[in-house]
């Protein structure tokens, strides 16, 4: 049987201060992804190897690792593409490594809820009777951004996040836009403070690597630039018309019929 070498990063904090590499030979099979190689190691060669995975079909977003230097979903990255090897498997970059291939994701988990990634109902409207109707065009506006599986490959690819972990980051901003651009949502004004803070969209320098890394075609880089344009247009408007509505302040409920103006702006 043909085999391929996997060079896997090991880190056991109880007895080493820095990660080391360990090499394993695994079967090279046509239908095996890098994750299958890791599972083979865990089941047959070395039960102490730690890593995350669940769905094995690119849906759960838990198997992200650095494969030959690139952030990848290991369940969707095939060993044959790297033959004859060796294949280097490291934990996702830009995150603290907890053990072997497992990284600490609490930073991202803490950031997600700050952008209210859910549909915010209009404050003055009564709860919707029946279903919210949406046209295919309205769905088109945000659908791409709704494909995110929170795999954090984009954070791993982003040098801005690597340099400054306060940066809100690609997926969180794309997710905010996913709701801002949704015709059923009325929460754009409650996301604006986080998004247009210095650590929000303005930290981004459009390196574009998040979009390259994303396995789901989300294009977080595009989402961020589009939001910059919206925020800039909005702030010029409030400069030219200082007596007008200040859109970046939360409004008391019922004060404004058109509290969806922020999201309309980008449509």
């Amino acid at each position, binding site marked *: 049987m043909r085999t391929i070498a996997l060079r896997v990063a090991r880190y056991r904090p109880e007895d080493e201060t820095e990660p080391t590499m360990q090499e394993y030979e695994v079967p090279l099979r046509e239908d095996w992804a890098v994750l299958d190689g890791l599972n083979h190691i865990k089941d047959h060669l070395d039960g102490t190897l730690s890593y995350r995975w669940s769905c094995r079909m690119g849906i759960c977003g838990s198997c992200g690792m650095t494969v030959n230097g690139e952030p990848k979903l290991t369940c969707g990255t095939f060993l044959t593409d790297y033959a004859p090897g060796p294949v280097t498997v490291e934990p996702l970059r830009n995150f603290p490594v907890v053990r072997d291939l497992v990284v600490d994701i609490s930073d991202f988990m803490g950031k997600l809820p700050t952008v209210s990634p859910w549909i915010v109902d209009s404050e003055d409207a009564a709860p919707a009777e029946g279903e919210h109707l949406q046209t295919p065009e309205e769905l088109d506006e945000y659908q791409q951004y709704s494909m995110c599986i929170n795999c954090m490959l984009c954070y791993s690819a982003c*040098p*801005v996040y690597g*340099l*400054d972990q*306060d940066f809100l980051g690609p997926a969180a901003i794309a997710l905010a836009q996913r709701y801002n651009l949704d015709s059923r949502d009325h929460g754009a004004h409650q996301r604006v403070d986080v998004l*247009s*803070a*210095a*650590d929000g969209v*303005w930290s981004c*320098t459009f390196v574009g690597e998040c979009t390259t890394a994303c396995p789901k075609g989300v294009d977080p880089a595009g989402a961020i630039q589009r939001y*910059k344009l919206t*925020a*800039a247009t*909005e*702030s*010029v408007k409030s*400069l030219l018309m200082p007596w007008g509505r200040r859109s970046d302040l939360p409004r008391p409920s019922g004060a404004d019929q058109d509290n969806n103006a922020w999201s309309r702006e980008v449509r």
Partner: protein
Amino acid sequence: MAAPARRTRAEPLLWLLFSSGGVVAALFIPVLLLLFGVAIPLGWVSTPDHAHLLAVLQHPVTRVVLLGLCVLALFHWAHRFRYTLHEGLRLKRLGTLVEILCYGGAVAGSLISAYLLLWAW
């Protein structure tokens, strides 16, 4: 947020200047630099007549266009270079100093351009 609100509020405007500067720089600078920096010195094209260039330079439309180009291009530089220093050289600690240098430079350059293009020439 760590940054003072004042700076955050300036951010959208600085970004707008940066973007407009990026557009005009991309549209105008390559051809101008090709002409005056390379083609004319190397004799690829005959050196334009002085009287003609002077007439062009003193035309009101040219003045406005060139002033716009200079100001926006300088703010484009200031913004990008600020981020380059922050990230490329990891100078984020010196944030305020870098910002004063970059945007201050752009303001000074803009004033010089305005003086030259609107009064001196």
